[in-house]
């Protein structure tokens, strides 16, 4: 008998459309897996088995009556606990929101429900998404399914770990400095941060308004494309949501990368990453090259200041958002997040403005580079998952803080709002996954998804599963 939790969303969708598999069977299979594994992984923080089975039954009835809504109909999904879900507790991983039950859905939640998806429950997040490790949450840390003593990465760590452990076929995440891509890399799954404004942020608790992005975690680039197709598009509830036309992402997945020019910025992105990681990324580039892509050495001016600019923006915007809660309920935050928020009180306005000016400087530099190349490729993060509780990591003989190292390669693309896709590209000697990051031009999701899908047609890293 087929293990339904081993199938991709695309495969499940085809089977459901063909009526060879019922959404109820699929949902039951995932609920059984969650019941068996969540105690060890801590990916789900709220589960609605009854609601999920009822939604699956409703989907089954619709499909049997010829009312198939599309390729996501009847497929289970989990939402990061930063996304508001009507009638279902939404905590942002914080005691500040311990009893918060929203009365409306985030736009993404609503759109995926309209596409017929079945909500399993909510996934763990670093408190208010303010941290890239997922160690700090009112529910406790998320364990990495490849080694449960290691971090999942964050802040969408629950979503990534749930995909890696096959507790859901698809999950939502949010990404302010790398919070979709970092856990995707740590857990060996696929994560997409779309262009800023491509997917509505309405109903998702903000970390930094100008750097927050919503997107999927999935097994494959194709599954991420299915999520994006349903979720993308204008939304009057989000003032930053773009009116640019939504491409046909699935049609872009041709498997053909002949002539694709891939920019490789070795300075900063490669030379400060663990060699075991860069070796795997170089091997991934060789796969794409063998498929007909062309590698172009490039250098990104001023990239070294990205972390400082991102920090100024986190400190300014996050503290402004939490200002009123800090007034009277500071004690409800974790020590770590409270510290970040209170440090934001000291930020000078001019440093925030310099950071916003830097974004334009970096964006202009990248726009020039994209005249020579179609996509960029970097290691997703500088290392593989570190032990839970570690604050330092050694890279090429130099000690760095985990936070600094893990954010280094992802946060520049939050500053400039460009789309970025992370794909699993192999395992280090300890059996921990590494990630390849592909960055596209603004609204160029189709291009990076096409490259990612082509890479996954030639490799099977995305199909590997941890022994649990």
């Amino acid at each position, binding site marked *: 008998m087929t293990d339904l939790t081993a199938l991709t969303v695309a495969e499940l969708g085809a089977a459901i459309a063909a009526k060879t598999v019922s959404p109820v069977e699929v949902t039951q299979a995932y609920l059984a897996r969650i019941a068996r594994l969540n105690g060890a992984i801590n990916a789900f923080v709220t589960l609605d088995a009854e609601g999920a089975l009822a939604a699956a039954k409703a989907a089954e009835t619709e499909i049997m009556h010829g009312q198939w809504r599309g390729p996501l109909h009847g497929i289970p999904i989990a939402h990061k606990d930063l996304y508001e879900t009507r009638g279902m507790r939404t905590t942002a991983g914080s005691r500040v929101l311990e009893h918060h039950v929203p009365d409306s859905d985030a736009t993404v939640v609503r759109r995926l429900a309209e596409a017929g998806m079945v909500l399993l429950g909510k996934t763990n997040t670093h408190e208010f998404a303010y941290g890239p490790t997922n160690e700090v949450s009112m529910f406790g840390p998320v364990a990495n399914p490849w080694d449960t003593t290691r971090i999942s990465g964050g802040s969408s760590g629950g979503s990534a770990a749930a995909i890696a452990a096959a507790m859901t076929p698809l999950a939502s995440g949010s990404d302010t400095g790398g919070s979709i891509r970092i856990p995707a890399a740590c857990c060996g799954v696929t994560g997409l941060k779309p262009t800023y404004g491509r997917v509505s942020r309405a109903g998702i608790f903000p970390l930094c308004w100008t750097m927050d992005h919503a997107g999927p975690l999935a097994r494959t680039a194709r599954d991420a494309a299915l999520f994006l197709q349903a979720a993308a598009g204008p939304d009057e*509830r989000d003032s930053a949501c773009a009116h640019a036309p939504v491409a046909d992402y699935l049609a872009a997945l041709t498997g053909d990368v002949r002539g694709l020019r891939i920019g490789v910025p070795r300075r900063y992105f490669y030379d400060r990453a663990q060699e075991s990681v860069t070796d795997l990324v170089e091997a991934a580039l060789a796969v794409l090259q063998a498929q007909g892509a062309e590698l172009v050495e490039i250098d990104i001016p001023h990239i070294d200041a990205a972390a400082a600019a991102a*920090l100024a923006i986190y400190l300014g915007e996050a503290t402004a958002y939490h200002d009123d809660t800090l007034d009277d309920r500071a004690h409800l935050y974790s020590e770590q997040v409270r*510290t970040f928020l*209170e440090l934001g*009180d000291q930020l000078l306005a001019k440093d925030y403005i310099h950071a916003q*000016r830097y974004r*334009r400087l970096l964006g202009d530099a990248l726009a020039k580079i994209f005249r020579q190349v179609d996509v960029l490729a970097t290691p997703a993060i500088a290392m593989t998952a570190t032990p839970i509780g570690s604050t330092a990591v050694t890279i090429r003989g130099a000690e760095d803080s985990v936070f600094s190292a893990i954010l280094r390669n992802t946060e520049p693309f939050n500053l400039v709002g460009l789309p970025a896709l992370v794909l699993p590209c192999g395992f280090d000697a300890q059996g921990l996954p590494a990630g390849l990051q592909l960055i596209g031009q603004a609204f160029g999701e189709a291009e990076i998804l096409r490259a990612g899908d082509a890479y996954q047609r030639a490799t099977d890293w995305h199909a590997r599963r941890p022994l649990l």
Partner: protein
Amino acid sequence: MAKRQPVSATTIAAVAAEFAGHPLEAERAAAYAAAYEPILRAFEQLRRLPLKNVEPACVFTPGEARRD
């Protein structure tokens, strides 16, 4: 530009209480003073960038109606 003086716990506590409205305990202010030094060093990097004719990425759009 005048050379910056190290941030003190007294300054941190005063800014938090008087400007930000979030009074801090003395030991917390002392810890934050130590934490803020490397942050300021990072920001010095931003202040040295060639930003003379570069406007901030966030721009004001007049007359845009609230959509909620």
